[in-house]
């Protein structure tokens, strides 16, 4: 049995299940603490090696114990140090890969925005002080911390009461948000940050926009590498001590502590005070800090200097049973015979890396500081400042002072008048401070210097004082920290010197990468996979850089570190999605008639964001049968289409006509009020952008209709030309798409229905001609009626304010009931228009088709210029062998071609020449009116090839088809008047 509760902490009040076995736990403590207290050493397995792994750290930097949880806080994969124990929690160890729950999703997700003057990341001494000072200046503050409780790395020391009280006060203060269990996962442009708040089963993703950011992100303790450093029972020294101080959990009975800085010695003292037997303390430095050495001496522990761990030895349970200690040089090379020291806890520490990913994302560079034996951020932009352990300040008191000054300065800068960013020339090595715009930000360099030199550990660690690393200095004047990354000796097996436990990547992998010629840390990362695990190299990144620097004979700055891209911690997709899931994933635009379609069993088709009725099956009809029936009704009786989705743009202003003349291919300024004209719209390169009917309203303005999916595109096109090219024209465009519902009454009997619906309107052929627009009452509602036709049949397009859309639709259905009025959907609409050879933008056009290709030169004005006109004379657009619109009749009238099928000349087959595509099928249907299948297509030189037989190839079938005129039905146009 190894590991127990010291009795100084809370008593277990609940149970969790670990791999099926009950483990007593204190509600709210990390699962790792409960496992250590219960003597569970092996928590999970290595991803490649299957070697046993246990708890290594505390907090987020956990390279060892990865678990999957179910119950109140379900997660496919999480470090055991970050899951809070609570009743009903079921925990199991993972072998490298997370596993989603059987019934997804286990977690709820939500997302929100928030804004503040000052965002403080981290709630250690520096962060809490910064937030409190910013609040006192009147700033809107958000402070976020990963842990359930405030205090940061200093938790368990003398500042807990202050931290808790200040946090509570912050949480109650107006305009302050104190977010626990919240990881700020990324810094983006313009002060935007993403943060993930964990709330039991739910996650809340915050998008925080901050004017100023104070990064008080603390540091991550890093190990150093040696053979079999991955054995359960090998832990980070500061983490082992923190389990004692914070949770009253002693991770081992007999401890060996090895480090290269004084904080590791203070950790040894804490383990001793927690009740562990200290079997040995090794320090790689020739000389240790005097205060820490003295503190250990008083506890009867002698420090072995210039000594470190060469190898760990496993016991029967697979966990550590002994440490082999050997004298080491400054480069980590072991000299001389190792000494075997039995232990069940091997607590190691190689130093502390400022948690700098957010600083780097904000623009900082990392520079190696020899006195800190760490990379420190520098060159931050003026909107971001880094304080406390994140800036290398190890002393908690100094960190608090730094934070207070930085928080107040950030608040003043955020609330002050906007100032121009400082000249980059003045942004010195500590950019944010030298270039501080307002009020003088604190000189962190000076306070850093103070912490490096002035806090020689006086008082701390004395007999009466608790041994608190956070209260001591990491770089005492008489013995600064040493950079130790790896300890090896002549017999070391480099394949078992693990650098990244999460990837099972070892020293031998780095050596292999370098031997293969890689000399950039980014390449070595990709070759070895070091730093690509769930913790993104938080504990092993600097170790990998240090080993690389040693192997290449370069400085730490020459090697540097890998780029810490967001997100800093894993973010579940459910949180990213927020409420954009299910039927809220995208807006579903509905017409006012939707309730009727719903009640009458419509089958839908989503067109852009619109939900449109595709057809209305009766009884057991399939689409084919329903569409043939709907087509017949439109050609022989009366049918109705909900055409409300048509784009509608009002173009007004003195020069509206001139403006439309310049944009559309036809003449529109000559259009008289109350008349309509078909129009084609091209882009500057001469390609068809959209088409539609343009009506002149009685008040002189124009009502332009667009393809349903194209309203915004056409509106933008109009705004662009009017604003950037022709600002001298007096023209204003309005989007009126949603203002009007449109009931399109189609067929030879539609006039009868109109007579009943609009008794006051003369709808006779003489009074209401094709391409007329009339205003008047329809079904008791003021309406605009257009006599246009997209089917070739007599059509009344009734436009009413959208509030009345449903009522007028229902009135039309009632009025036409005895005539067999038939609702039809988009599929029938397509068949009817294709029978007439009418194009649909997006079917017959794809951005590479000109009006000439479509045989629509009749729509092009010869007397005036329009956008795209010149491009139609380019050699390529004018050549005769471009793909041209044709009709296609399959030789077998029962075959409906596949849309998109390629057209080739001769029949393919063995021995036939390799066929080249000569075009493709753009629309293809079965037709009730024609009694056969038909299609439209674009075929090279197609207009000259009517009568020719080509082949339509789709997948493995080639179908012979005859090329024809694209107008199949009523070529004379005699039916449009009924």
């Amino acid at each position, binding site marked *: 049995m190894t590991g127990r509760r010291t009795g100084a902490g809370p008593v277990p009040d609940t149970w969790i299940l670990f791999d099926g076995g009950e483990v007593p736990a204190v509600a709210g403590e990390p699962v790792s603490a409960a496992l250590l207290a219960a003597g569970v050493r092996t928590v999970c397995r290595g991803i490649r090696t299957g070697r046993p792994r246990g708890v290594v750290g505390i907090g987020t930097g956990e390279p060892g114990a990865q678990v999957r949880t179910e119950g109140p806080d379900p997660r496919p994969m999480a470090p055991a140090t970050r899951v809070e124990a609570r009743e009903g929690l079921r925990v199991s160890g993972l072998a490298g890969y997370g596993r989603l729950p059987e019934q997804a999703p286990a977690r709820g997700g939500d997302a929100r925005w928030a804004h503040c003057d000052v965002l403080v990341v981290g709630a250690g001494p520096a962060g809490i002080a910064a937030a409190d000072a910013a609040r006192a200046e009147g700033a809107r503050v958000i402070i976020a911390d990963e842990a359930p409780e405030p205090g940061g790395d200093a938790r368990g020391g003398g500042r807990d009461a202050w931290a808790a009280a200040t946090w509570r006060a912050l949480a109650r203060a107006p305009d302050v948000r104190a977010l626990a269990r919240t990881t700020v996962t990324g810094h983006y442009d313009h002060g935007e940050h993403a943060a993930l708040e964990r709330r039991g089963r739910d996650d809340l993703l915050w998008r925080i926009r901050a004017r100023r950011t104070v990064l008080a992100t603390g540091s991550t303790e890093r190990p150093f590498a040696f053979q079999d450093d991955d054995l359960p029972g090998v832990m980070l020294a500061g983490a082992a001590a923190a389990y004692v101080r914070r949770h009253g959990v002693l991770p081992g009975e007999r401890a060996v502590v090895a480090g290269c800085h004084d904080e590791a010695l203070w950790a040894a003292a804490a383990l001793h005070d927690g009740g562990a037997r200290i079997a040995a303390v090794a320090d790689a430095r020739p000389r240790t800090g005097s205060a820490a050495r003295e503190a250990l001496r008083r506890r009867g522990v002698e420090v072995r200097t210039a000594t470190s761990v060469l190898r760990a030895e496993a016991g029967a349970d697979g966990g550590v049973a002994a440490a082999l200690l050997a004298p080491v040089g400054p480069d980590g090379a072991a000299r001389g015979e190792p000494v075997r020291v039995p232990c069940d806890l091997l607590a190691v520490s190689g130093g502390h890396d400022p948690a700098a990913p957010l600083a780097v994302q904000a623009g900082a560079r990392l520079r190696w500081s020899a006195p800190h034996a760490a990379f420190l951020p520098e060159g931050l932009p003026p909107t971001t400042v880094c304080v406390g352990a994140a800036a290398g300040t190890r002393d908690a008191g100094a960190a608090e002072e730094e934070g207070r000054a930085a928080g107040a300065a950030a608040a003043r800068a955020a609330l002050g008048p906007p100032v121009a960013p400082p000249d980059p020339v003045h942004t010195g090595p500590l950019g944010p401070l030298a270039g501080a715009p307002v009020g003088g930000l604190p000189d962190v360099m000076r306070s850093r210097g103070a912490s490096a030199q002035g806090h020689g550990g006086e008082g701390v660690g004395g007999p009466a004082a608790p041994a608190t690393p956070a209260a001591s200095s990491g770089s005492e004047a008489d013995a600064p920290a040493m950079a130790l990354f790896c300890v090896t000796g002549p017999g070391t097996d480099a394949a078992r010197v693990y650098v990244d436990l999460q990837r099972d990547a070892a020293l031998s992998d780095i050596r292999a990468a370098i031997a293969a010629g890689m000399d950039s840390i980014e390449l070595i990362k990709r070759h070895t996979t070091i730093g690509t695990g769930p913790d993104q190299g938080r504990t092993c990144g600097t170790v990998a850089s240090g080993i690389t620097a040693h192997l290449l004979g370069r400085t730490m700055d020459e090697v540097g570190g890998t780029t810490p891209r967001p997100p800093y911690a894993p973010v579940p997709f459910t949180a990213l999605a927020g409420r954009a899931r299910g039927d809220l994933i995208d807006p579903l635009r509905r017409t006012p008639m939707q309730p009727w379609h719903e009640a009458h069993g419509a089958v839908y088709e989503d067109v852009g964001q619109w939900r449109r009725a595709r057809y209305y099956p009766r009884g057991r009809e399939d689409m084919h049968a329903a569409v043939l029936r709907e087509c017949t009704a439109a050609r022989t009786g009366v049918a109705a289409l909900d055409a409300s989705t048509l784009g509608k743009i009002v173009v007004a202003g*003195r020069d509206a006509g001139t403006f439309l003349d310049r944009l559309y291919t036809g003449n529109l300024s000559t259009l008289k009020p109350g008349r309509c004209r078909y129009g084609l719209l091209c882009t500057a390169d001469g390609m068809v952008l959209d088409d539609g009917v343009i009506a002149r309203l009685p008040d002189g303005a124009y009502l332009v209709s667009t393809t349903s999916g194209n309203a915004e595109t056409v509106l933008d096109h109009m705004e662009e030309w009017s604003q950037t090219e022709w600002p001298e024209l007096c023209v204003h465009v309005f989007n009126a798409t949603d203002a009007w519902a449109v009931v399109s009454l189609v067929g030879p009997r539609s006039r009868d229905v109109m007579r009943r619906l609009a008794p006051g309107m003369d709808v006779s052929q003489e009074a209401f001609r094709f391409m007329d627009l009339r205003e008047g009452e329809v079904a008791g509602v003021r309406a605009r009626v257009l006599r246009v036709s997209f089917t070739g049949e007599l059509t009344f397009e009734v436009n009413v304010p959208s509030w009345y859309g449903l009522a007028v639709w229902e009135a039309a259905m009632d009025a036409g009931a005895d005539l067999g009025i038939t609702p039809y959907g988009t599929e029938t609409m397509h068949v009817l228009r294709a029978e007439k050879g009418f194009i649909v933008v997006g079917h017959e056009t794809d951005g590479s088709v000109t009006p000439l290709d479509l045989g629509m030169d009749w729509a092009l004005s010869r007397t005036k210029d329009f956008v795209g006109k010149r491009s139609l004379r380019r050699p390529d657009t004018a050549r005769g062998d471009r793909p041209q619109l044709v009709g296609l009749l399959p030789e077998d009238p029962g075959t409906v071609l596949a849309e998109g099928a390629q057209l080739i000349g001769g029949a393919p087959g063995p021995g036939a020449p390799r066929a080249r595509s000569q075009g493709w099928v753009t629309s293809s249907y079965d037709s009730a009116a024609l009694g056969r299948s038909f299609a439209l297509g674009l075929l090279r030189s197609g207009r000259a090839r009517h009568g020719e037989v080509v082949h339509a190839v789709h997948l493995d079938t080639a179908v012979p088809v005859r090329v024809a005129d694209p107008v199949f039905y009523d070529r004379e146009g005699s039916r449009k008047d009924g």
Partner: protein
Amino acid sequence: MAEPAVPRRRSPAEGLLEGSHLSELSFLAQAELRVDAEEADAASRMAEQFLGCPLPGPGRATGNGAPYVLWSGPGRYLVVDSEATGRGLCAGLSAALGGEYGRLCAAVADLSAQRTVLELSGPDAEEVLARGCPMDLHPREFGAGSYAQTVIGKAAVGLHRTGGPGPSGGDATAFRILVRASFADYLARLLTDAAAGVRSAREGAVV
């Protein structure tokens, strides 16, 4: 043949909002007014006579309901009136500005049914909106009488703060959201869902 019954209007979010702090102000008259941006001052002087209030500056609303005017871009205004008809509103505005052949390059369109107006009120209104709207809605930045065009979820909206701290707001927080009719169903469901999210967060989904 059946004589058409008196037609019933149906508002875009009808029946979606019972029992929440969200309600629909249906069938308001709405006119869009456009003038060349450099003529905005002159237009404001001419329109004020008819509207009873000047045209608002950037990011603001003027007037108090019958009508009120929202700034929706340089030279662009949305006039909302709870008492007039869209046609009456447009005719009056158009006449005030001198008609199509007046001195100004102005145009007016009756777009009453283009948008509906949702009203969101109550102490949680800002929190609910923050679940979908990226703007800073703190009263210090967006007080009563502020108007902005923004998005809520994936719907483009006009957002008007009518209640809360500001020159004309009362104590109670209230927003009016102008949304295009075809997006009203999506937006109403999104806001209802967001309100439930805020409620459950408040009621201690936190473990």
